[in-house]
C-alpha cells in the first residue's frame, strides 16, 4: 500500500471511528447540554473524516470516494487506533478517551500544519481549531469528574486504567510513519510522546487520578492486523444502510 494512502486512512479512520462512537451518545447523554456538545464533537470528527478520506481516495486513484472508504470497507481494512473503537461504556470512559486522544491530536495536528503536503497542511489547520476546543472541553470534564464525587472519581480511575494499555499505540512508529517523516509529510508519532505525557500527567493530577504503571501497549489497529472484536459490531451498525442498499443516497 502506498504509504501516503495508508497515512491518510489512519487519519480518516481515527476521526471516523471516534466520530461514530461519539455519535452513539446522541439522545442518550446524561444532560441535554452534554448531549448537544457530544453531537457537535461527533459532527466535527465526521467532517474531518470527509476531508481525510476524500484526499485518501484521490491519492489511491482507484475511483473510490470518501463514502466508499467509510461504508464499504471491512474491519481489516480499517487503520484506526484500537483505543477509539472500544465501546463507550459510560460517559466517564467516553470523555476520558476523548481527552487521551485530544491530548495527542492537538500537538499532532499542530505539527501537520507544517506538512510538506499542502492538502495535509490545510486539513490539519482546519481540524486543529476543532481539536483545540475538544481538548479544552474534555480536559475540563475529566478534571470535574475525577475531582468530583466518590462515584465519579472511581469511574474515571476505572476508565483511565482500562484505556491506558491502548494509549501506547499512538506513539508506536512503523514503516508508514518513517516514510511520511522522510517525505516531510508528518513528524514521527513518537515525537509527540513527551508533550502528551506532560499534559496527561498535569490533567490527571488536577483530576485526582493516578496514572497507571506499566507500559504494555496493545497494537494492531493502525496496521489493521488485529482489531478488537468491537469494531466489527460497530461497523455492522454504521454500514448497514450502504450494505443493504448499495449506492443509496438522499
Amino acid at each position, binding site marked *: 500500500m502506498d504509504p501516503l494512502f495508508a497515512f491518510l486512512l489512519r487519519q480518516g479512520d481515527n476521526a471516523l471511528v471516534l466520530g461514530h462512537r461519539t455519535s452513539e451518545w446522541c439522545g442518550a447523554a446524561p444532560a*441535554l447540554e452534554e448531549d448537544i*456538545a457530544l453531537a457537535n464533537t461527533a459532527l466535527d470528527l465526521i467532517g474531518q473524516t470527509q476531508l481525510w478520506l476524500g484526499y485518501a481516495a484521490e491519492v489511491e486513484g482507484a475511483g473510490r470516494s470518501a463514502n466508499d472508504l467509510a461504508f464499504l470497507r471491512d474491519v481489516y481494512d480499517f487503520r484506526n487506533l484500537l483505543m477509539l473503537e472500544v465501546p463507550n461504556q459510560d460517559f466517564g470512559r467516553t470523555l476520558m478517551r476523548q481527552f487521551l486522544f485530544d491530548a495527542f491530536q492537538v500537538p499532532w495536528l499542530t505539527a501537520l500544519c507544517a506538512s510538506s503536503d499542502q492538502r495535509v497542511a490545510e486539513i490539519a489547520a482546519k481540524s486543529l481549531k476543532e481539536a483545540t476546543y475538544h481538548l479544552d472541553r474534555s480536559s*475540563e470534564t475529566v478534571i470535574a469528574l475525577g475531582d468530583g464525587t466518590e462515584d465519579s472519581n472511581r469511574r474515571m480511575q476505572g476508565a483511565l486504567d482500562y484505556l491506558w494499555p491502548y494509549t501506547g499505540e499512538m506513539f508506536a512508529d512503523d514503516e508508514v510513519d518513517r516514510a511520511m517523516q522522510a517525505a516531510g509529510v508528518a513528524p514521527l508519532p513518537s515525537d509527540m510522546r513527551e508533550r502528551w505525557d506532560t499534559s496527561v500527567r498535569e490533567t490527571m493530577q488536577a483530576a485526582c487520578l493516578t496514572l497507571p504503571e506499566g507500559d504494555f501497549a496493545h497494537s494492531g489497529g493502525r496496521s489493521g492486523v488485529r482489531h478488537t472484536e468491537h469494531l466489527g459490531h460497530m461497523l455492522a451498525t454504521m454500514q448497514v444502510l450502504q450494505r443493504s442498499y448499495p449506492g443509496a443516497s438522499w
Partner: protein
Amino acid sequence: MSTSKEWPLWEVFIRGQHGMSHRHVGSLHAADADHAIKNARDVYTRRNEGVSIWVVEAARITASSPSDKGPMYDPARDKVYRHPTFYDIPDDVGKM
C-alpha cells in the same frame, strides 16, 4: 436527565456577527460559569450565530414584578415628547 436538575440555571446572551449588542437567546444548565460558556457555545452558536457570549446565573438576576406593570410603565405612555423623533438626523451620523 437527573444531572441537569442539580446544575444551576444560566441565562445566555450572544452578540451576533453583525449585531451591536448582546441579546438574550435562552437559558441552560451548567455546573459553573466556565461550563456555562462552553455549553452556550455548543447549544447556541452551532449555526454560526455569534462571536461573543455572556452568561449570568439566572438566580442572580433581579427582575421587575409583572404586578407592578401599571405604576411602572403606564406613566411613560403619553409622553411622546420624550422620543427624539422631532429632530432631523444627518445621514453621516449613521446608526443611532
